[in-house]
């Protein structure tokens, strides 16, 4: 009995909607991917595209591509695409995750990218439980660059850089990324799958879908490692390469689920990784404990218009003498007064008792370089610092030296000197550590342009402790007095630091 009804067929498996219709990588070859015949990347691309289609998340998917054979994801996937620097896909994905919550973020990486140059990025992204899905395509070799050994290369496997086969004694052991990351507490789901036969392929598709689904539910970090054939570099036919995945590769990299916290994450939504939103900008002073009143305000008018300011100070001494703080107070006072400033510390690894110096510039015009190689004011808090820098002071400049006697051999024609035992003077005032502020008083007298209010605001902002602020203010006042006493008769002020613009 034949009926007139025609049998109906529907597409059960076909090209995913998440792929572009044509790939505009080159004018020709727009039908095909750039992958070699039998390459696992194509298969994994299809599984990912199918997962995106099935979950209906194409419009909010952002795919972060790697460096390697998988680099051209943006030519194939009709989703948001970012191509990251080598190994940095998890870091880029993290940034996207933080700035675009609600997106489905997938990091697609090969084994050279993820397990070699990007080993730190993946480790820390996993450890933070970053809400990303990572597809890790492991073919045990660097393919795009021509077959060099990767961290995942098997023992005995030949590559261009291990021509005798990988030897654990010289090249170490294959890196088991999935097992390694599964020891962490944060990841929600880690599975290794293969493309070795039909059964493995079907499982790989399920695992990839699960990783993408976990991400879209905000459950946290998921990683699917796929053992993927590379017929070209392995020098095998596509079918032989497929067999090699299941017969050889799988022995070193056993398949299976290494970590699965999906259920507990679903049960406890509070555990779900939702990045804490960044605080509003105007909240920052409160969070940092900085009262608004203490922030530099930029009183540009505080310094008379028309005056040139070009103060270039080098401050040097032992670590712990307050060298950097002196520079900071000077720079912040300048900032408060509306000047251009720079402050550049220069010190070795020693925090105490080593030598330390800083470069400070205050100017009306934009500062070209923060380096002060020829200061017009040198603050030398000890003799070695004086000897190191005194020759660099410009003629007409100043040397403020912490010592009773200025070494005769350091005297130079045309350089003004103020040498006083600042440490003893500060000690007499209550604490020898205030020596830097006594010297600061002298610097302020030389500079002559900084309003008292700006200096006081900078000091309060940087020192905080009221007892020290009080002592430092007294110390500064003392320094000003000492300077004025020393040069009461003829205050020699440097025209290089301040000058007057000639009026037209």
């Amino acid at each position, binding site marked *: *009995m034949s*009926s007139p*009804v025609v049998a109906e*067929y529907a*597409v059960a498996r076909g*090209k995913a909607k998440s792929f572009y219709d044509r790939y505009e990588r080159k004018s020709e070859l727009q039908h095909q991917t750039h992958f070699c015949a039998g390459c696992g990347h194509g298969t994994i691309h299809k599984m990912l595209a199918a997962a995106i289609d099935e979950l209906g998340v194409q419009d909010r998917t952002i795919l972060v591509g790697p460096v390697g054979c998988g680099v051209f994801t943006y030519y194939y996937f009709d989703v948001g695409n970012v191509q990251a620097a080598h190994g940095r896909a998890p870091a880029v994905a993290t940034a996207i995750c933080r700035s675009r919550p609600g997106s489905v973020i997938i990091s697609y990486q090969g084994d050279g990218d993820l397990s070699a140059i990007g080993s730190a990025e993946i480790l820390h992204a996993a450890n933070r439980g970053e809400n990303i899905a990572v597809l890790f395509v492991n073919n045990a070799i660097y393919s795009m660059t021509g077959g060099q050994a990767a961290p995942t290369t098997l023992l005995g496997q030949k590559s261009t850089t291990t021509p005798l086969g990988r030897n654990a004694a010289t090249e170490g052991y294959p890196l088991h990324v999935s097992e390694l990351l599964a020891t962490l507490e944060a990841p929600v789901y880690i599975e290794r799958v293969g493309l070795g036969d039909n059964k493995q*392929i079907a499982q790989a598709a399920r695992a990839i879908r699960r990783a993408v689904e976990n991400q879209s539910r905000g459950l946290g970090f998921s990683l699917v490692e796929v053992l993927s054939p590379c017929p070209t570099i392995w020098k095998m036919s*596509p079918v032989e390469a497929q067999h090699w995945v299941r017969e050889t590769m799988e022995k070193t990299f056993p398949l299976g689920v290494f970590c699965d916290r999906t259920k507990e994450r679903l049960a406890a939504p509070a555990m779900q990784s939702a990045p804490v939103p960044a605080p509003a900008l105007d909240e920052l002073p409160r969070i940092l404990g900085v009262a608004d009143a203490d922030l530099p305000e930029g009183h540009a008018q505080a310094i008379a218009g028309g005056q040139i300011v070009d103060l270039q100070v080098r401050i040097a001494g032992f670590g712990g003498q307050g060298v950097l703080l002196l520079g900071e107070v000077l720079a912040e006072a300048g900032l408060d007064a509306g000047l251009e400033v720079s402050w550049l510390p220069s010190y070795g690894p020693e925090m105490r008792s080593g030598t330390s110096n800083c470069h400070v510039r205050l100017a009306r015009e934009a500062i070209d370089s923060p380096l002060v190689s020829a200061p017009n004011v040198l603050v030398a808090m000890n003799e070695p610092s004086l000897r190191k820098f005194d020759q660099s002071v410009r003629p007409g400049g100043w040397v403020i030296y912490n010592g009773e006697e200025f070494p005769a051999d350091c005297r130079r024609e045309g350089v003004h000197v103020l040498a006083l035992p600042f440490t003893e003077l500060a000690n007499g005032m209550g604490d020898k550590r205030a020596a830097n502020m006594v010297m600061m008083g002298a610097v302020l007298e030389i500079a002559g342009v900084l309003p008292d209010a700006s200096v006081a605001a900078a000091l309060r902002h940087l020192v905080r402790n009221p007892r020290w602020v009080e002592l430092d203010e007294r110390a500064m006042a003392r320094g000003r007095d000492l300077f004025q006493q020393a040069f009461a008769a003829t205050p020699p002020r440097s025209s290089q630091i301040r000058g007057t613009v000639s009026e037209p």
Partner: protein
Amino acid sequence: MSEDKKQERGILKIDEEECKGCGLCMEACPPKVIAMGERLNRYGYRTAAYAGAGCTGCGICFLACPEPGAITVLRLVKPGGASAATAPEGATACASN
């Protein structure tokens, strides 16, 4: 094949322009109804070819194939009276899952 009452459960379409002839679909196909064709496509690949009958519509060849659109698998959704041989080409495709 020639029996009218026996309808094909699936139909396989291979896009010759996209196939690179890797042979993984042949390896994957459970009823072994895919073979390497004789002709070359315009890029110079010998491409896979469906035997024309025997496809069960399981779709595993699609999963094994590395090219996004080289293989399309159609599955019988509503048996009709006509011979399978008359049905395939313009089959009403809808579901994409």
